[in-house]
């Protein structure tokens, strides 16, 4: 083969291969079963849905979900939490969080404040086994209580600010989401979150966090942790609706947020929050 033949062949080969590939993509355009995220990204190709952010079918209801009409938040009443850990367990089931006991989208902390101002914090979700025998009463303990924690879905989220590829963002209804296809797993957001709400998912090799169970909320269901909470210590609602339980909760309680000095404007509101809680 001489140079002339080679160039002729190339001139035919490239356009032909592009044409064949395009035809193949269009034939399998709706194929969403591709497991590898890169293949899926290419397969979706020009057929990417052009919906506005936050629009999607509202499951069984059939009515379209309008994200701009909502602004979601959660209320947590410390005095009602019994530390049963049902929320953390339900969250793992609902969201396929890795089963190892140190990956959580939501978890419960036990605060023990002793005389002399010594505060001990322990994550009870790490060892959710029920106690067989009641622990002996420690006379030195001033007060002790449980604090459920999760992503605060800040209005000014530091994690969104630091993401170098724009994989994490706030939706128009105030939920901070992570695009697991765009996330490069650099862990900046995990470092930036002042609440420790993010973790690195070793299954997907991306950052992972609470989504307020967005897939449930748009279907009109409650987040899994709120659904299973036996004492109504967690309250989920829409801050734009006067009738929502969360607005009522804010009216009836003294509300605090975690680390207000950081100006992150969290949307997880705590009632009866002790000053020792960090």
């Amino acid at each position, binding site marked *: 083969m001489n140079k002339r033949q080679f160039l002729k062949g190339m001139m035919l080969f490239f356009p032909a291969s592009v044409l064949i590939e395009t035809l193949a993509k269009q034939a399998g355009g709706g194929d969403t079963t591709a497991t590898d995220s890169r293949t899926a990204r290419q397969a979706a190709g020009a057929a990417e849905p052009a919906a506005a952010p936050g629009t999607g079918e509202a499951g069984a209801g059939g009515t379209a979900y309008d994200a701009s009409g909502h602004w979601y938040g959660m209320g947590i009443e410390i005095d009602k939490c019994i530390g049963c850990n049902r929320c953390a367990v339900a969250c793992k089931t609902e969201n396929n969080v890795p089963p190892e006991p140190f990956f959580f989208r939501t978890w419960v902390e036990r605060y023990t404040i002793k005389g002399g101002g010594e505060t001990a914090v322990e994550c009870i979700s790490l060892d959710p086994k029920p106690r067989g025998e009641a622990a002996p009463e420690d006379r030195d303990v001033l007060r002790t209580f449980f604090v459920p924690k999760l992503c605060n879905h800040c209005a000014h989220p530091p994690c969104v600010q630091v993401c170098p590829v724009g994989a994490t963002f706030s939706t128009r209804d105030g939920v901070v989401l992570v695009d697991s296809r765009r996330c490069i797993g650099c862990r900046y957001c995990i470092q930036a979150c002042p609440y420790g709400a993010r973790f690195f998912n070793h299954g997907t090799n991306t950052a992972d966090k609470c989504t307020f169970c967005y897939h449930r909320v748009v279907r009109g269901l409650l987040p899994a942790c709120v*659904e299973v909470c036996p004492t109504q210590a967690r309250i989920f609602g829409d801050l734009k609706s006067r009738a929502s339980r969360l607005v009522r909760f804010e009216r009836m309680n003294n509300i605090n947020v975690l680390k207000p000095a950081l100006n992150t404007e969290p949307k997880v509101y705590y009632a009866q929050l002790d000053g020792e809680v960090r």
Partner: protein
Amino acid sequence: MRFPEQVGRLGAVAAVLVLAALAVRFVMIPRSYFSTRLHQASTVEREIARPVSFAGVAACRECHFEEYDRKTKGYHRNLACETCHGPSARHAEDPMAVKPYAPRDRTFCPVCHGYDPSRPTGFPQINPAAHNPLAPCISCHNPHDPVPPEVPHDCSACHAKIARTKAVSSHALLPCATCHTASEQHKITPRTALPTKPETREFCGRCHATDAANPNAPKVDLATHGGAYRCWQCHYPHLPEGR
């Protein structure tokens, strides 16, 4: 001027390369990769498309309205069904094929009701080791309408500690009246009308002597066992196996 043939060929190769680059940019790479709006929309759509595991109370009520109505009148009225029965969305889709979990053993209820000093005051808590050991919770408490199995009555209303002790002893099935006789006046003025107590070794011997009729009670020979001591100087009658 004649157009050189080499320039034409070079131009064709350059055109092919440009076309290939354009194809990569506009055909192979999805638009959502360049458009923030589309990228976020596709993330939201993927998030929304995720399956639900917890069906929610409204779905349970459609079929199990009797349990639901009973639950709404009891202390567990604010509990979702799936708090105890586990995620049941698949059961709601196909009720015959998939059955939800139903906790029946003693380990489940203490997850909430076992004593823990951090739990809020007033939340009903028990010590699982001392509260009717080995009995399943549901044998006394209906989880859909949990109340104490019986309100304290007769002796246990005042003598609750003795009643609780006796309940775990081998004398659990003996009514208080087996050994004590209390007049009606004892309920009105307890200190002035004291109930009777057994006074002789022969009283215990009615069950525990070698010639006693009761086949289940352990037997001793009253003539040789314990000498001059009374039975209750060594054996506490409300918990005879205790030391």
